[in-house]
């Protein structure tokens, strides 16, 4: 088509030149609504970016927690960010598997969290292999969490759940400050 209709196809054409790498870079500027110092890419929420046959930019995201109230906001933020940069057609897809893991959090994200006063996750994936209690249970429960304020490892768990489901409450036993710990998941 040499002379596309002026109104409708302007958006469609805008998509043709969209580069997947560029979209990733744009998404890396979209902040998590709950923890604004970390982007949704650094948090590992964005799983894929594709341009489908119809030239629609499809962004696949995965929820951190199934009840995460921020997912709708995140989807809206992505759409807004891409549209603002001229991506005409955007679709948000949700994927549950593999389930989101804190292992997907980037090194940049971990540093940003610490500076923000939230201790980043320290274990690898949580152990869901067995139900055995005793020594193992207690060992799992005591990850070596460093205080984001003074760096001390002399800390203790106050509560398994903090201000959001993804965080636990800790207290530093040296500087005495309470802090959030981003749980391993």
């Amino acid at each position, binding site marked *: 088509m040499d002379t596309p209709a002026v109104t409708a196809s302007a958006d469609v054409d805008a998509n043709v030149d969209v580069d997947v790498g560029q979209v990733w870079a744009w998404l890396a500027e979209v902040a998590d609504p709950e923890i604004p110092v970390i982007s949704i890419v650094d948090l590992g929420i964005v799983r894929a970016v594709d341009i489908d046959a119809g030239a629609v930019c499809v962004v696949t995201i995965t929820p951190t927690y*199934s009840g995460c109230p921020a997912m709708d906001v995140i989807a809206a933020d992505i759409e807004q960010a891409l549209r603002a940069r001229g991506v005409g057609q955007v679709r948000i897809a949700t994927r549950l598997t593999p389930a989101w893991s804190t292992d997907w959090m980037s090194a940049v994200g971990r540093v940003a969290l610490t500076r923000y006063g939230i201790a980043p996750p320290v274990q690898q994936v949580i152990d869901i292999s067995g139900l055995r209690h005793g020594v193992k249970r207690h060992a799992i429960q005591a990850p070596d969490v460093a205080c984001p304020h003074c760096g001390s490892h002399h800390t203790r768990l106050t509560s398994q759940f903090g*201000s959001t489901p993804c965080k636990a*409450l800790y207290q530093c036993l040296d500087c005495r400050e309470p802090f959030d710990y981003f749980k391993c998941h």
Partner: protein
Amino acid sequence: MDAKVDYLLRQGDNALILSQQLSQLCGKGPALEEDMALTNVALDLLGQTRLWLTYAGEREGQGRDEDRLAFLRDTREFRNVLLVEQPNGDYAQTLTRQFLFDSWHYVLLRGLLQSTDARIAEIAEKSLKEVTYHLRRSGDLVVRLGDGTDVSHRKMQAALDELWTYAGEMFIYDDVDLAMVEQGVAPAAEPLRAAFLEHVAEVLAEATLTMPAPGAYMQRGGKQGRHGERHGFILAEMQFLQRAYPDAQW
């Protein structure tokens, strides 16, 4: 009704009713940390509810989405086990109900990871990570309060004795459950029950609590829609808005 729809409703309704009950404690927890934990668990369960009920509605194919299923069904159509509709009571009861539920929920979800239904396996994988934290928390608190003061020990033992009769329904399989086992969708009852009892016995021993007899008479009927009278009151509060203002949206 299609057995799988029924099975999905059971999962969704368990999470929904327990979530609703825990939400009633928002702002009333015995300590700030517990208040937050209760509501976080409620939120996790609500998220899981959405996944289950959405799938149930799609599978049913009658145009009912998660909201219609949650807000426009009456008591007899709910498929939750009796355990989750037991009153919040005192904190020992809230906690014991949670511990018994978490212990079963965990072993069930672990079994569902192997489901031949890929979507069920996905939901189980997502939920299991969350439920692992629920289980750790409730198990810890059972130990702390059971092996605590004389008063806390007595209250925990009383709650356990009171609620134990509701800790068996999940392992009494009916035609729906058996059809799911046959299709490879759900795990068989016996291994689940064994894992559940093993875990519960271990935690209760550490908590210095006496475990009631596993062979005791167990209440049943919730999975088939026969609920206690409290169930209607739970729904009355949960469904009020949609009943009074049909199709109201946020």
